[in-house]
């Protein structure tokens, strides 16, 4: 779109770019600074002016992190929980979404509205009884405690239903039925292959949410051996309050895996997010 009389260096454009650059800088700077502090000796951190360039002590600080928390165990726990929940959410939510989008059954719309309404309910409301149920099941200090309650969620059902409604024509369903497909077969062989973009976005959202979850794991995972990485970080921060360099080295190492996952799928993710909201 070329507008006559607007030069490339017009004040509006300069301000626009300046604003973009400032916001980008503010967005990225904490990541950088986390590494800067994490790579200095603690005594160097406690000086004025603060360090602005990376130092040479990162591995020493990392070593201290490994001494203080079970870092790799915590990462593995996070990976197990996130992967299991993501797989379950993708399966159950797409299956429910398919049912709501393409099958006809009584009270379908009412049940769907109910599911949407549950998104309003804050998770803390049922915190205490949930804790009691988990403890009755003997799942305190077990990853089951965070995996099982999160295996399906309202947002995922809503998301998959919208996508399946918008992208899969009913004619395709009819064609499949004439060929003798059962409902599950329709879901598995016709719907699933066509909703991969929506699955990728939902999968990534779910994975990141579980990875970053804090309150519920804090309540049910008390033993160090089952801590997820966020809970482990919290212990690190609580117990060794003074050693900022070590704490931020740990924070940096805990952020890198999720950063890599995100950057790998970022294009898919952001376009999925944009498309998905258009369809509402």
């Amino acid at each position, binding site marked *: 779109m070329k507008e006559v009389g607007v030069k490339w260096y017009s004040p509006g454009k300069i301000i626009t770019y300046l604003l*973009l650059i400032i916001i980008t800088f503010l967005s990225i700077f904490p990541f950088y600074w986390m590494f800067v502090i994490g790579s200095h000796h603690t005594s160097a951190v406690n000086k004025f002016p603060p360090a602005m360039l990376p130092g040479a002590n990162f591995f020493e600080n990392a070593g201290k992190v490994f001494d203080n928390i079970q870092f790799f165990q915590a990462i593995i726990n996070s990976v197990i929980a996130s992967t299991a929940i993501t797989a379950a959410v993708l399966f159950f939510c797409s299956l429910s979404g398919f049912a709501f989008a393409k099958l*006809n059954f*009584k009270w379908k719309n009412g049940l769907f509205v109910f599911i949407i309404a549950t998104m309003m309910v804050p998770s803390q*409301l049922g915190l205490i009884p949930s804790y009691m149920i988990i403890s009755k099941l003997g799942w305190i200090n077990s990853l089951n405690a965070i995996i099982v309650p999160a295996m399906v969620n309202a947002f995922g059902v809503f998301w998959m239903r919208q996508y399946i409604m918008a992208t899969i024509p009913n004619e395709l369903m009819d064609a499949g039925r004439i060929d003798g497909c059962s*409902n599950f077969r329709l879901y598995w062989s016709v719907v699933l292959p066509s909703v991969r973009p929506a699955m990728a976005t939902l999968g990534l959202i779910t994975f990141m949410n579980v990875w*970053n979850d804090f*309150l519920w794991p804090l309540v049910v995972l008390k033993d160090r051996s089952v801590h997820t990485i*966020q809970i482990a970080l*919290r212990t690190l921060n609580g117990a060794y309050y003074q050693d900022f360099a070590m704490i931020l080295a740990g924070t940096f190492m805990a952020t890198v895996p999720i950063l890599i996952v995100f950057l790998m799928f970022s294009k898919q993710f952001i376009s999925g997010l944009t498309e998905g909201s*258009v369809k509402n």
Partner: protein
Amino acid sequence: MSSNVNLNKQQPANSPSYKKTWKQSTKDHISGYLYISPFFIIFGVFGVFPIIFTAWISFHKWNILGTKEFVGLRNYQLLFTDDPLFWKALGNTFSIWFISTLPQLFLALILAFILNSAFVKGKQFFRLAVFLPNITSVVAVAIIFGAIFGQQYGILNYLLSFFGIEPINWQGTYWGTHLAISSMVMWRWTGYNAIIYLAALQSIPKDLYEAARIDGASKAQQLFHITIPMIRPMIIFTVILSTIGGMQIFAEPLMFSGPGGGAMDQGLTMTLYLYEEAFTRNSFGYASAIAWVLFLIIVLFSLVNLFVTRRIKSAE
């Protein structure tokens, strides 16, 4: 007899196609309920039951070791009439929510407009960059910002010293704490909201603007009569979402101010108070009452917000 034949022709009960549709409808019912059942089972066990049970516990005085004692509405009465901490937590929560949400949504809107303007190059990169904070865990954010907002060696106080401003005790003061926590929320969610707004902006049909231009509408008129009304649903969505999120703020104050919310309770939010009552002081009954009040506040506040944001339209 002849009418019977006619009827049969209209609804051929024994023909294969009728049989098929009947069978299909039964099949759909069975698989439909089966496929949606996982949500209802999980939500039933970990959603509905706990909510109802929380209500029941809230009528009791109960620490996990002793026996439950039925006290009726005593917990609620205590909460509203004789608990300064509750009002403090409520005030803190609203203050932090207000300081973080208003600038955040406004900034997100501007950012979305910028990212949607035709001349900006490198949109992919900027979209990615502003979204990046959202993938960082709250715990990590709180630790980093704790370092940035440190009184003695914090980078922010260092920057302020250039302007001749004395070091501010962010952690120890009421406003300092609220500003620090709000900035964590803003940092994490501004880009996310900008992307959501961007999606809404891109979904507005271009010919609406063309028609407006032909009718001689100015840029400002286009903004207030086309753009804002068209993205209104998204604005409502983000306001409701940040309200729910803001009322539940927990990890940031816990990490920044410590378990009790600091020496002056300046970082004590509703959820932090709930957590402390339940899992530190073991007063499950009282904590359950807090949980229910928190829930009602969220519903009420969401409705008020819905009402207020709906009025954006009547600005036309």
